[in-house]
């Protein structure tokens, strides 16, 4: 009984998932301003890269990490890429998802059709990652152009950014279902920003006191940054398997919890 229910909950119709994505494509097409906003999204990490990576990098000079010497910009760029993958996915699955869930009542209308909560969750997540991937591809192009990684590094890093998008997107979606109102987004934004500042993005985590370092190593962006930096710089160790496993767990757990919450909220 239990297993059939679980199977029913997790069964997917690609057509219906596609229809959920189709809605977002339609929304994108009908609003010209939405387009500009979407496309302009990749500027943010790029500007950070130019300001902190190149601007502050000129003050820093070269950096020695685990015995490898690299320019500060080459150190920061992969982190900005990971951040870009994270925030691209989060933008869609937190703010937009919450708005559709709570205010537009989009999903109430959708759930009156054959579409299931799990299909909504998967559709929204796939859409978020597709959207985020536009940013990461452009960003990788810039990194190659600026000599901050190789073409091979960029090709290796791209699937990693997809995984990062899936992981943050899934968890973000679950978190959105727990939000009480807009004020909670301030907390989410703060958490996101704190991770952005301390996940080995701007300086190596070894510099922090041991306790802080361990705490950071428990957070998701740290694993995302480590994974992408390994692949972009070509300094790959067995540690990336831990990073990958960590992120994969987030994808599965986040999706599972998110669809359960949607069902609890809307199917009572």
């Amino acid at each position, binding site marked *: 009984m239990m297993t059939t229910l679980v199977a029913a909950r997790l069964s997917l119709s690609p057509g219906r998932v596609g229809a959920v994505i189709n809605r977002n494509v339609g929304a994108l097409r009908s609003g010209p301003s939405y387009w500009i906003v979407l496309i302009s999204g990749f500027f943010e990490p790029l500007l950070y890269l130019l300001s902190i990576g190149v601007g502050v990098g000129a003050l820093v000079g070269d950096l020695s990490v685990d015995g490898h010497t690299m320019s500060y910009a080459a150190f920061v760029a992969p982190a900005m890429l990971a951040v870009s993958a994270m925030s691209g996915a989060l933008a869609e699955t937190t703010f937009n998802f919450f708005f559709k869930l709570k205010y537009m009542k989009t999903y109430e209308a959708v759930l009156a059709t054959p*579409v299931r909560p799990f299909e909504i969750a998967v559709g929204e997540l796939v859409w978020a990652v597709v959207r985020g991937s536009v940013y990461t591809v452009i960003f990788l192009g810039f990194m190659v152009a600026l000599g901050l990684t190789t073409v091979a590094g960029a090709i290796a890093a791209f699937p990693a950014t997809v995984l990062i998008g899936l992981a943050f997107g899934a968890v973000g979606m679950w978190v959105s279902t727990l939000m009480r109102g807009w004020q909670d987004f301030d907390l989410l934004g703060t958490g996101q920003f704190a991770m952005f500042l301390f996940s080995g993005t701007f300086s190596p985590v070894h510099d922090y006191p041991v306790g802080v370092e361990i705490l950071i190593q428990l957070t998701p962006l740290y694993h995302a940054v480590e994974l992408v930096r390994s692949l972009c710089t070509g300094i790959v160790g067995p540690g990336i398997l831990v990073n990958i496993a960590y992120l994969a767990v987030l994808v599965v757990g986040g999706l599972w919890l998110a669809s359960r919450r949607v069902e609890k909220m809307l*199917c009572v």
Partner: protein
Amino acid sequence: MADQSLIFARGLVKRFGDFTAVDGIDLDVAPGEAFGFLGPNGAGKSSTMRMIGCVSRPTAGQLRILGMDPVRDGTRIRARLGVCPQLDNLDPDLSVRENLTTYARYFGVSRAEARTRADELLEFVQLSDRANGKVEPLSGGMKRRLTIARAMVNDPDLVLLDEPTTGLDPQARHLVWERLFRLKQRGTTLVLTTHYMDEAEQLCDRLVVMDGGKIVAEGSPRSLIQNYSTAEVVELRFADGLDSNAQYAAKLDGIGERVDPLPDRVLLYADDGDEAVAEVHRRGLTPASVLVRRSTLEDVFLHLTGRTLVD
């Protein structure tokens, strides 16, 4: 019987914690029927509709929709339902037409077919000229008509309408009624909830009156009025009414079939209203105003529950 019914319920119950929203109701809705739930806010109409729409699990009792089990076959049932919710949940990010085409995709309707249907339905709800416009600037009545069109996009066997005209101005209501009446004429099975008796009288072949989660009466609007009211009702208002209506009611005792004192007026139920008024004057009473009218479902509800429908 159960095999032909589009909706079949026995002892259907919905509880939210300690609160019982629907308290053991039986239903049979036949194909082609226009069936209504009449009752005040909180009577359990919307909870019943959500169970029928397979987005809410029954707490207890038997429920079969289109001959299937809503818990197990929810997806298959919903594929054949059209739902028009109480509050419009149209998609403001999409154009009027895209609202229909996008929705059709959820049912697996092909893109080309979705476009054709969208255009037909926009024509049907008289919104063709707004097809490429945004949803936001539409009036309340237009939005409701668009929501009804959206509910038709999968060519459903059964259309559920939760309070289809609540919040609309009189003109917009009549336009919506007229469209729903056309649907009915085409043979579409309609199930609707309402707390307006005029709406129930206009649209429903058969209805149940709900109160406190229970069905308190069932029948056609005509038969309900015949069974639970008189042909005519006299409304009497007294200048010093308000506090003394109960005393007036005592003095009116015996006229017609029943006397009902309300805070602002006294109702006299009689098959011949004019005769009842004559008797009132013979008893030497001088009401400030007298109105003789036909009986409505409002009177039925008042009789059944002792309360007015719209408060």
